[in-house]
């Protein structure tokens, strides 16, 4: 154990923690932009600067030492942070009201904390160097006028997904996040997992057609056998979005393209809404009672005439345990073990 003095308060800390870790554990806010708890640290945005034992360091990278004295509120610290945030804003699209990330934007939050005002901004020159948009991906878009080159997407793609479809390209103020040849993301190795969109601190990466949910429900993904935890965003009686459940031990919040963007089928107009019965060769809507009466009648008829083994059932690898249990119970009840499912496919 070590003790770190932050702004005059002694805070207990473990060796190996960073100044940011310790500050957060003590409930002290330090603004960050390029930092993300899931990823390796970068140290590029320079807005988490603090003074540690008198020297200016990035809180996200500086390891603590026993007896370290940290100040997060000196004039020097405020000056550096404020200038750096202002510099980021000078080449950032400033139309917050129409941005999908409005009120959910890390940069907005940091600006508010640093007290960035229009007066201060007006001293500076506006230099938006990159205004392109990449709308090639059906699920999300990339808006470079809002990119602050924090590299969170780059690190996400390499460290979370392992694809590294994007990297920093060019240098200096021309630095951009790019696929090979600066091609649209859809033409790259991108797997559309959306992990970068999830972590982008600004509106540079946003889901297309975003709908803000009114409530959220935790559940499990209905696709492959990995069994990732999902948090469904719901508005009215519609599922409008999905995010990974960070508390789920299987996926720890990570998802693939299907898990994250493949929910549209739930509200699809093709969904079956009533029982259908084949009449004169065509399937026609009917009542539950009629449909179930028909089925139970057939079951009785075949059992009586040909024995229960004339019945067979295919249960489902996509239904719940409870559904499956009742299905096999029903068939075995009827006297047959002709139950199987597509486990082999």
């Amino acid at each position, binding site marked *: 154990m070590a003790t770190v003095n932050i702004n005059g308060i002694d805070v207990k800390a473990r060796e190996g923690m960073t100044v940011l870790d310790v500050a957060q554990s003590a409930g002290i806010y330090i603004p960050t932009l390029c930092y993300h708890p899931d990823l390796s640290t970068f140290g590029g*945005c320079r807005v988490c600067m603090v003074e540690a034992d008198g020297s200016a*360091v990035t809180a996200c990278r500086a390891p603590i030492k026993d007896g370290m004295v940290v100040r997060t509120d000196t004039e020097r610290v405020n000056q*550096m942070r404020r200038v750096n945030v202002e510099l980021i804003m000078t*080449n950032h699209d400033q139309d917050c009201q129409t941005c999908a990330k409005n009120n959910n934007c890390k940069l907005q939050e940091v600006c508010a904390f640093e007290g960035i005002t229009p007066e201060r901004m007006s001293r*500076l*020159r506006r230099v938006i160097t990159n205004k392109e948009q990449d709308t090639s991906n059906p699920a999300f878009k990339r808006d470079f006028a809002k990119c602050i080159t924090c590299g969170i997407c780059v690190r996400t793609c390499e460290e979370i997904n392992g694809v590294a479809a994007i990297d920093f390209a060019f240098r200096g103020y021309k630095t951009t996040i790019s696929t090979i040849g600066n091609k649209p993301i859809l033409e790259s190795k991108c797997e559309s997992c959306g992990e970068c969109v999830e972590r982008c601190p600004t509106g540079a990466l946003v889901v297309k057609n975003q709908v803000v949910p009114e409530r959220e429900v935790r559940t499990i993904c209905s696709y492959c056998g990995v069994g990732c935890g999902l948090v469904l965003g719901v508005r009215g009686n519609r599922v409008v979005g999905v995010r990974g459940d960070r508390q789920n031990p299987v996926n720890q919040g990570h998802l693939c393209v299907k898990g994250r963007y493949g929910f549209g089928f739930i509200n699809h107009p093709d969904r079956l809404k009533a029982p259908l019965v084949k009449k004169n060769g065509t399937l026609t809507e009917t009542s539950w009672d009629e449909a179930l009466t028909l089925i139970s009648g057939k079951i009785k008829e075949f059992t009586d005439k040909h024995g229960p083994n004339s019945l067979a059932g295919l249960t489902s690898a996509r239904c719940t345990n409870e559904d499956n249990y009742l299905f096999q119970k029903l068939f075995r009840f009827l006297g047959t073990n002709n139950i199987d499912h597509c486990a082999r496919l």
Partner: protein
Amino acid sequence: MYDKQILICAGTGCISSGALDVKGSLEKELEKHNLQDKVRIILSGCHGFCEKGPIFIVYPEDIFYCGVTAEDMPELVEEYLVKGNIVDRLLYKDPITGESVTSHENIPFYRQQKRLVLRNCGVIDPENIDEYIIRDGYSGLKKSLQMDPKEIIDTVKNSGLRGLGGAGFPTGRKWETAYKIESDKKYVVCNADEGDPGAFMDRSVLEGDPHSVLEGLMIAGKAIGSDEAYVYVRAEYPLAVRRLRKAIAQAEEYGLLGENILNSGFNFKVNVKEGAGAFVCGESTALVISIEGKRGMPKPLPRPRTTEAGLWDKPTLLNNVKTLSVIPQIINNGADWFAGIGTEKCKGTAVFALTGKTNCSGLIEVPMGIKLGKIIHEIGGGIPGGKKFKAVQTGGPSGGCLPESKLDLAVDFDTLLQAGSMMGSGGMVVLDETTCMVDVARYFLNFTVEESCGQCTPCRSGTLQMLEILNDICEGNGREGDVELLLELGKSIIDSSICGLGKSAPNPVLSTIDYFRDEYEAHIKDKTCPALVCKNLIIYDIDQEACTGCGRCRKNCPAGAIAGDKKEPHVIDQEKCTKCAICYDLCPDRFSAVKCLTGEKITAMAKGGGN
């Protein structure tokens, strides 16, 4: 046996001035006079005096001819080599007295110099290892192979040598750290990624004396327990790369590189890595990352020192070309010899690329502690054209500008830093009264903006912001408060940037504001460029009294902006004028009718009804 040896400089400067043609022509003439067995031609490395190239020295007499051309060869061979008459017109003329100087040692440019790093440059054939060996080459290595690592390190420590790459960190201490760390593998890296605009000493050493660098690397390797080195050299220096590769091959052939060197059991391998054009790779962590095949982005603090975990996380000793090249002499001559040169705190010499508005320019090496004024006025021969000295910029884009009041400064690492500039990699640009200090600051900032790696906000966006402000100021769009804003930004950029590039990028701006704030104010408040440089703030106007209507300006104006009848005073149409200054340059001195005006004078002229 040869009677005479002729050294023709084959540095990049002289080659571009026609040194190879000179050699060809000389060979022909020698044959004509059947002297080819009597006179030996040596292509040497750079002499430093590139401005006067091609340089041509005849030994044993030490006659220094400069600015020779292929056409001069028949006369030179006939008159001098055959008849023994010195060809006076090809000798160096003192810019002040106008007198001819025969020996280069008597040329002021050379007289004040103390050449250690450049000892062999221009003296030997860099492509011939024997010439290096004759001048005690590799004897430092031989000696060090008999020495204990501790002894070598102590010698370097006691010599007081400080890294000549810019920061001036004590070399011996760095070696000691690298030596003490235990590891199965260590590397020595020679930083030859010289990228400062206005500096070319590393290039000259690699081109003129590559073996000294190899020898230095080997001694360093022996001292710290490393068996492999990398030389990271700019690909923009093809000649340096070629000569270095040749030197490695020769040293290997002689058993001076490779396995079991000189039966000492010491193995050493040298790899050459060509940099691909990124100034920031001169920064140690970026250089290491670049060798590893990545984007050369410096590693943010906290991180281990390169000496502890550098190339592939192995201990890596990183030294500059100049530092390494002087090591063999220190081993040979002892620590005291080196410590006897320079000042108390800074031993040895400093190498500068003296350029800009001086009569003589080129590569110079001077003992630490020499007065700044002495370099400019004696070695550099003062300011040409009777213009007034304004400032000297040292340290390239990381450095600053020092005004006349600082000419008394005894130059070394520390004094330059205290004065708001730095040694850097040794660029020294002399500026006269026709240089606009805001424009100079803008120039350097433009360089850092282009060379910023882009990973951290202050350097990526901050330098760009400062540049935009300077652009506005130079274009007459400066706003009240811009100087304060530049100071605020500069301070914050220095404080919060990741690496040395960002931390020093504002220096040219801050130092010019410090010493020439009035020029900034003049641009902002009075819309005046006192040095008559900033295009938006000046106009060209023809003095109706002085103009004789010779028509030179009118005929040569690319914009067709000048009108006027023959023998009648001409007029410039300000709408059309692009301010290219051709008229200004062409107007004969005896008339000097084209005037350059700024600020209030423009207003006055406008009020005066257009002329």
